[in-house]
């Protein structure tokens, strides 16, 4: 830690687990280690900037996962806009198609449903952790999760199996 000065108190200790969470959720959305690394770094930089507010909060891990997932979804949308031709030529890559379809479907969900689905199935948080991160009741998490997954099934159809993705997470 010689190269970094004036780190906020507790940030160094919390950096590894938070960065790992941010990286994993970003990689699930992006499917690209390098891009996920950049997204996780940006999420942690924002956590650094807001560390005074989130450091002692029990929902700080959920906060970082939410930021990371939102950044990853933005990156997917940006990527699909700027390089749609490339994606079309590589349509045989089912993984890319699924990720793009998932990102589009997630972006169409209501904000709360999207956050619950991302935290639960991409971030790997439990329902209780999701409730703590979003500061809602566990019952509300179940409701949003149910509705969000139903909407994703309707939109994605046979493209992907959500239950399987969640269990693999």
């Amino acid at each position: 830690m010689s190269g970094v000065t004036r780190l906020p108190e507790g940030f160094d200790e919390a950096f590894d687990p938070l960065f790992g969470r941010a990286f994993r959720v970003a990689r699930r959305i992006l499917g690209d280690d390098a891009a996920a690394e950049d997204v996780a770094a940006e999420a942690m930089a924002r956590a650094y900037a807001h560390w005074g507010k989130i450091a002692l909060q029990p929902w700080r891990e959920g906060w970082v996962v939410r930021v990371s997932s939102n950044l990853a979804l933005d990156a997917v949308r940006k990527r699909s806009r700027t390089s749609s031709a490339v994606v079309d030529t590589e349509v045989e890559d089912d993984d890319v198609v699924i990720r793009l379809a998932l990102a589009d479907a997630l972006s169409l969900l209501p904000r709360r449903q999207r956050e619950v689905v991302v935290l639960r199935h991409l971030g790997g948080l439990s329902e209780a952790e999701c409730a703590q991160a979003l500061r809602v009741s566990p019952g509300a998490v179940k409701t949003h999760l149910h509705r969000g997954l139903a909407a994703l099934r309707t939109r994605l159809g046979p493209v992907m199996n959500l239950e399987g993705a969640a269990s693999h997470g």
Partner: protein
Amino acid sequence: MADRDWPVATPRDEMLARVAARGTRIRAVRGALNALAVMTVVGASTLGVGAALRAVSDSSPSTEVDNVAIGPEPPTLSVPGSSSNPSVTVSGGGSSSSTPGSAVGSTTSTSEPSGTAPGGSITSSTSGRTGTTSSSTSSSSTPGTSTTATSAPDTTVTSTSQAPTTTVPAPEVSNLRFKADGVYTGQSVCHEAEATVAVEITGADAAVLKWNRAGRTHRVEMVAEENLWSASIGELEDRATDVPVVITVEAMGPGGTTYESAIVEVADCSPLPSAPSESEA
């Protein structure tokens, strides 16, 4: 702890340094935006307060008086007993002996022993920031009171405005009336007579009399004798006696400034034989 669970290719310390640098920039930008927002809010509120203070302090009624006097003369402002019907009013102080009276206005001359009030009425409104209030009051009350001098005190409405932050009472203006040839003429003035406005003011250091006539605004400093302040408005130069004159007394004192506006009619005090008839008009 090192890099055992470290998930990415970039070394942990390097990533932490990168995150810290980027986080510091985010924090700086956020602080600058917050400061800018605060400065904007403070600046806007300062401008708003300044404008409000200017609006409060700039409560001179001269503007609305000008509007009343300069604007087109509505027919409702015509005073009964003017050139079209000169017999209604009784002559004022232009010449104390000339009190022709008339069949209609006889009650006026008998009700005031001095015989000087020619049935004019005076309607005062004070420092209202809406000139329309003043003008509407005058147009409605003047015709009704012009034929009877005894009703004049009842129709006089006086109020004062004070500086809101001062504890010293603002000057009080009362008993505004005219004087000609040393004789109080009540609340109207003859059109060819030298007239003086006299008013009782308490708590004032200075007073200014303003009035409009023929589209021009006149202004003269008032002179005090104890609480009695007076100023000459001279001889009203035209004979448009059907147009009331708006006068304003601006009394300034340590407690603020009090404005009292009054609409006073100009009476045609010419003797009946020489009074202009309707056909001449």
